[in-house]
């Protein structure tokens, strides 16, 4: 993992290149029973650049997986545009869809569910090779399978290609999923919670493998996670999503060290903190309920105003009436909040441009 490099520098350098993939004002509504409509994705725009990692962070139900499915062409957006290499994505025909798939690949969360139990590892890899890499002889395909397995460090490759998913550990299965995604030779990789089903001790290894593949193939990587701490270490830019809206975005280190939006602040303060030995958990004083007695985590999404207002300690009348638009904090950071003057008072001063990296504690 690129723990010593400066991700901000990489991110800023990447910003003037053309994005490999772009989401422009994406919206996705799902019609539920009756007249209910679920706004799963609201006005989401961002760019993915080759060789950089963008993390999409949010709780379950925040719409982050829907974003991945939209980008992968599994769902059609209700409105908005997706651009791939500067061109609007066209999924109208089989050929166009296949072309899109060869450029944009998905890695799923659960390696136990995403591999077919009745097929061998090599079958999982041969299919995308034949589909996306043109005509090849048997020997060429076999060679390619071995090369893919070596790239994800399943070595010796010959020992793994004939195995079935149940013969592999969770980490090994996820490596096969990575290899399968790489078989299409994509430019964009969408990784939907790629390590959250794995053991803590091998998560880092998998993330560093992903990081290594990202560098080697200059992949534009979208890393979807609920773990904001891993986003700090792994991503260049972080997008924080709440109820389908991107509420805050910025360079990973800066955003995690000095969160501006109240929701990001809540996320950061909720992460387990081993250094916090006088923890609220030990003393048992951590429960806060809102004025009407419901737990803040069970509060719903309002129809008007700021989506986070029911859980927000700073919400005022304006927040409950007007939907907040993203406000620029610095050239690389923005947050959708009406109360940024209070929520991010430490960020609004002119001297605060960079430098989250050297904060301690």
């Amino acid at each position: 993992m690129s723990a010593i490099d400066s991700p901000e520098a990489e991110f800023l350098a990447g910003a003037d290149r053309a994005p490999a993939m772009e989401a422009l004002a994406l919206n996705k509504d799902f019609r539920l029973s009756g007249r209910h409509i679920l706004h799963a994705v609201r006005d989401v725009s961002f760019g993915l650049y080759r060789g950089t990692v963008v993390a999409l962070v949010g709780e379950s139900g925040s719409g982050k997986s829907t974003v991945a499915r939209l980008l992968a062409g599994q769902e059609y957006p209700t409105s908005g545009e997706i651009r791939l290499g500067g061109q609007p994505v066209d999924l109208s025909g089989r050929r166009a869809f296949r072309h899109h798939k060869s450029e944009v690949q998905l890695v799923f969360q659960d390696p136990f569910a995403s591999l077919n139990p009745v097929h061998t590892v090599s079958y999982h890899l041969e299919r995308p090779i034949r589909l996306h890499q043109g005509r090849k002889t048997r020997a060429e395909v076999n060679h390619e399978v071995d090369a893919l397995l070596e790239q994800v460090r399943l070595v010796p490759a010959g020992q793994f290609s004939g195995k079935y998913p149940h013969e592999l550990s969770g980490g090994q299965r996820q490596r096969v999923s990575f290899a399968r995604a790489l078989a299409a030779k994509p430019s964009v990789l969408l990784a939907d919670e790629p390590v959250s089903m794995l053991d803590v001790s091998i998560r880092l290894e998998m993330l560093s493998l992903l990081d290594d593949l990202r560098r080697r193939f200059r992949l534009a990587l979208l890393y979807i996670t609920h773990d904001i701490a891993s986003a700090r270490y792994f991503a260049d830019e972080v997008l924080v999503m709440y109820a389908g809206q991107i509420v805050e975005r910025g360079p990973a280190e800066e955003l995690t060290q000095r969160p501006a939006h109240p929701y990001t602040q809540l996320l950061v303060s909720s992460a387990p903190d081993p250094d916090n030995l006088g923890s609220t958990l030990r003393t048992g004083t951590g429960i806060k309920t809102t004025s009407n007695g419901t737990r803040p985590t069970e509060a719903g999404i309002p129809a008007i105003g700021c989506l986070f207002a029911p859980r927000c300690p700073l919400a005022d009348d304006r927040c409950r009436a007007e939907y907040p638009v993203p406000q620029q904090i610095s050239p690389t950071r923005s947050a959708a909040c009406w109360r940024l003057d209070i929520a991010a008072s430490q960020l609004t001063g002119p001297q605060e441009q960079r430098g989250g990296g050297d904060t301690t504690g």
Partner: protein
Amino acid sequence: MSAPTLGPVSSGPAVSGPVLDIRDFSVVYRTPGGDVRAVDKVNLALHPGEVVGLAGESGSGKSTLAYGACRLLRPPALITGGSIRYAGRRLTTPADVLKMRPEELKRMRWREIAIVFQSAMNALNPVLNVRDQLVDVIHAHLKMTREEAHDKAASLLDLVGIPRNRLRSYPHELSGGMRQRVMIAMALATDPEVVIMDEPTTALDVVVQRDILAQIVELKETLGFSILFITHDLSLLLELADRIAVMYAGQLMEVGTADEIHREPSHPYTKGLLNSFPSLRGPRRDLAGIPGSPPDLRNPPPGCPFLPRCDYGTDACTSVGMSLAKVSSSADPNHVTACPFVLPDTPRPPHKIRAEAPAAAEEVTS
């Protein structure tokens, strides 16, 4: 919550000694390929009002240990030795769980030791509403009339902060956090003295997770039960638990207070675990993780089971008997480690001394 139905047990006279004392406990899984030593001579004590964290990766035997302590394992699992002494306040003399007759076991389970299972979606019955499931538990373990049981179910929901109008909800109508709260309410229905929590918050978001953990701690303090908290997330335990037991390949590697484990981890595996999760706070550290995978427990290698993945391993480690020894440098007299060689201030070797990892370690990075 009215006191007569669920009075705090902490008001009783202070009991000296642990409420649950696991000694030399061993479990094997009988498989065609040989016995898998899932739990190997584990000693662990849980004191009244204490939160003991059991940490380890999947397959380390932590759930087997906890379920074995309630004799909830079914074949091919086989308890091969040890004793589990339970000394609750409602018992006149301590009893050995392993020697209980079936009807004694039935009285002990849930009434004395309750479990919050890992996956609330699977542990709850999808075709029964919340009230019926709570009433089921109450009827199975307590003598109550229908009306009393219904009142009790409602007050249990109050206890875990779920509105009473959810009594008629079915599990699929509840959020993940609410389902887990129902599981906690169910475990507390009989006022147990020990609650085993098996990864109760693993599937939840951090914000919900923190909310539930805070509630667990609050309930523990008002009702006075002890918790055996199983998780693979050591960072969580450092904040939550009083003492932490680190388990690997069926054996305990290190036991100590959360502060000691955090400040002066003694076992290389504990050090590896501590270096496995990215931290949000403080300067960015170089993280390493633990390359490799656990040994095959059908044929455990001689000596230390962690040796193939250990950075500090020497030839002596293949012959060392695994027993927990006191960490001499530690301020905590009960801080024990299974690694006799590595003290907290031992410098990390410049390169690995040991030979190449065996073929069993398939996760090895090239």
